[in-house]
């Protein structure tokens, strides 16, 4: 269903099924994420977008009753293999959540947390640099450089979300997963975050769940449409939005439901 891609994908999902107890939340999904692209996951509420995203970095591991089958690879290695260290996996596959969730610590410590636990910095200067670079990449440096010791929770919603992105970037991930990162933000903050995603696009494989088709159209190169746990259609964003192959996709993007 996916359009052919010349270079090897960063992450692949094949025949992925997810069950929550008896609920079949994801039904046989195949999807690739590529390194220099933004993939948007769209679909009506409850169709399994978040579930699929959380499979990719095994955040579902800790959900009681959640079973994942099928194969998900990162650089060709199965991430569900027993010998895979999920801590390292999550360092390589970063995540940004719907509601900004900075730690109740200072801005500096928020960003420095990941590098610290992964031992990415040998010295304080190293760490300072990582923090500064990450905040800079997240477009937050200028706004916070004078108040790194202030609590991250004291920032505005949009700033918090960018702080969360900075935090994810700081551990130098290869993939970034974003679950409705703008739905709690006002339009101005949303615009800032979208600009940031645009900027990050070249360096990371990015998957983003969104409820707003406008947003998907604005920022993504690939779009995947989920419906009731099934990946209905997947392809270039322009193609999905202009000439969807499936009736359900068409109905959804023309506002017949959702």
């Amino acid at each position, binding site marked *: 269903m996916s359009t052919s891609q010349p270079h090897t994908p960063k992450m692949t999902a094949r025949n992925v099924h997810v069950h929550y107890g008896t609920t079949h939340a994801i039904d046989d999904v195949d999807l690739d994420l590529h390194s220099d692209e933004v993939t948007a996951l769209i679909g009506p509420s409850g169709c399994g977008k978040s579930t699929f995203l959380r499979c990719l970095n095994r955040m579902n591991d800790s959900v009681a009753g959640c079973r994942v089958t099928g194969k998900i690879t990162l650089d060709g290695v199965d991430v569900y293999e027993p010998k895979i*260290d999920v*801590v390292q996996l999550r360092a390589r596959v970063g995540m940004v959540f719907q509601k900004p969730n900075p730690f109740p610590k200072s801005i500096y410590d928020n960003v420095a947390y990941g590098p610290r636990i*992964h*031992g*990415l910095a*040998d010295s304080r200067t190293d760490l300072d640099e990582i923090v500064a670079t990450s905040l800079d990449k997240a477009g937050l440096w200028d706004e916070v450089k004078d108040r790194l010791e202030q609590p991250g929770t004291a920032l505005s919603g949009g700033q918090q979300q960018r702080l969360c992105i900075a935090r994810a970037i700081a551990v130098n991930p290869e993939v970034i997963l974003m679950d409705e990162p703008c739905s709690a933000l006002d339009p101005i903050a949303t615009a800032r975050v979208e600009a940031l995603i645009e900027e990050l696009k070249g360096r990371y494989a990015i998957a983003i769940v969104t409820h707003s088709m406008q947003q998907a159209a604005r920022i993504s190169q690939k779009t995947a449409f989920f419906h009731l746990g099934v990946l209905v259609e997947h392809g270039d964003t322009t193609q999905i939005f202009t000439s969807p192959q499936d009736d359900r996709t068409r109905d959804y993007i023309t506002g017949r439901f959702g």
Partner: protein
Amino acid sequence: MTISTIFTVIAVLALIGFSAARQRSVALVGGDTAKLHSLPRHYGYFGTACVLLPSITVFVLWLVFGQTVVESLMLSGLPDKVVAAYDGEIHILLNRIRIAVEQGSRIENDPDILNAAEHYFRLYKTGLWATFGLSLATGLMGMAFAVNKAHPSFRARNRFESILMVCLMVSSGIAIVTTLGIVASLLFESLRFFAEVPVGEFLFGLHWSPQTALRADQVGSSGAFGAVPLFAGTLLISFLALLVAGPIGLLSAIYLTQYANTTVRSIVKPVLEILAGVPTVVYGFFAAITVAPWLRRTGEGFGIPIAAESALAAGLVMGIMIIPFVSSLSDDAITAVPKELEEGSLALGATRSETITKVILPAALPGIVGAFLLAISRAVGETMIVVMAAGMRPNLTANPFEAVTTVTVQIVALLTGDQAFDSAKTLSAFALGLILFIITLGLNVAALRLVRKYREIYE
């Protein structure tokens, strides 16, 4: 050599273990710590754990079994004639030897015993040194193991965290161990009691008068061990306490969460919490000297005869004490009710009080039940207030104006008065404790079921 030296040595060893394992891991990757699976300090922690676990285990084993082992070794080495002299009463011999070890010839002059003590002491010292050596050795082995393990690919963090996990599990096991300890310290004496007094009589008898002979010239064997009046008394007083604390606590919680502004709340809540911190002895005096006479006078004014030591006085004061348990925990339960429910009701045109009584309270019920349960638990287990205010009269009545006694009062009285651990009178204290334990256990099981059921329905 003292325990503190041993522990110091082990602590130093643990520190060495930390830096050795850490440095090895760093050295193996030539300083490029990124190649390590875990952070260098995780290798260090692992090293520490590998030293501490075996060496402390050895030491604890010595603490627990050392004396027994040494003593049996010593006894087996004694000349037959010495043992024969204490035929069947080895513990007396053992005791003499122990005293001799401790006190030397100051109070012991039997040369055989002194020799045995000498022997005992040598064995003991040997054992202590052996333990020390063994714990050092195992600690060193642990260190070697950890250092050897400190490869870049070794998952030091995961291993260290599993060890930590075991600590967490052990901690939560302490509650169980405590329970076992309580049951064990009650069970043995209780069994001895039940050998003398039938369980049926104890559980269903209506008359409590623990006046069995402590010595032959006391009232003989007229002891009646029907515990029902005690449990009824406990129930009555707890019920009265709940009658006071329940409405006051719950209404306070409602007022504070629903009506009061934040300043009032932030002042009143800690003030009410002081009530829980007042020592129970103080409440006891308050109940006995201030409240009880006041009740009595008031009662006389209305022509109601109120006993000097009424259940009411004790229940009332105990109720005051447990107010904060009800109010603080109900407060939490009420705050935890989703705001949407409240808004749903208000949006239908309900007044605030209707919303509270018809929507919020039912939704908060599991939490409130929990609060009441903890309050009842406190009331049932409370001792000093009832000892001072409720009196000692076993009285099967539901009249709060009469004097009653409770299980805890009897336990304290039996254990602090003239006692003899070979008479049913004293032993009954243990049986009371055991049965009370079983009853509250049942209560808690029932409560857990209840709360679970509500949770299933409403969540």
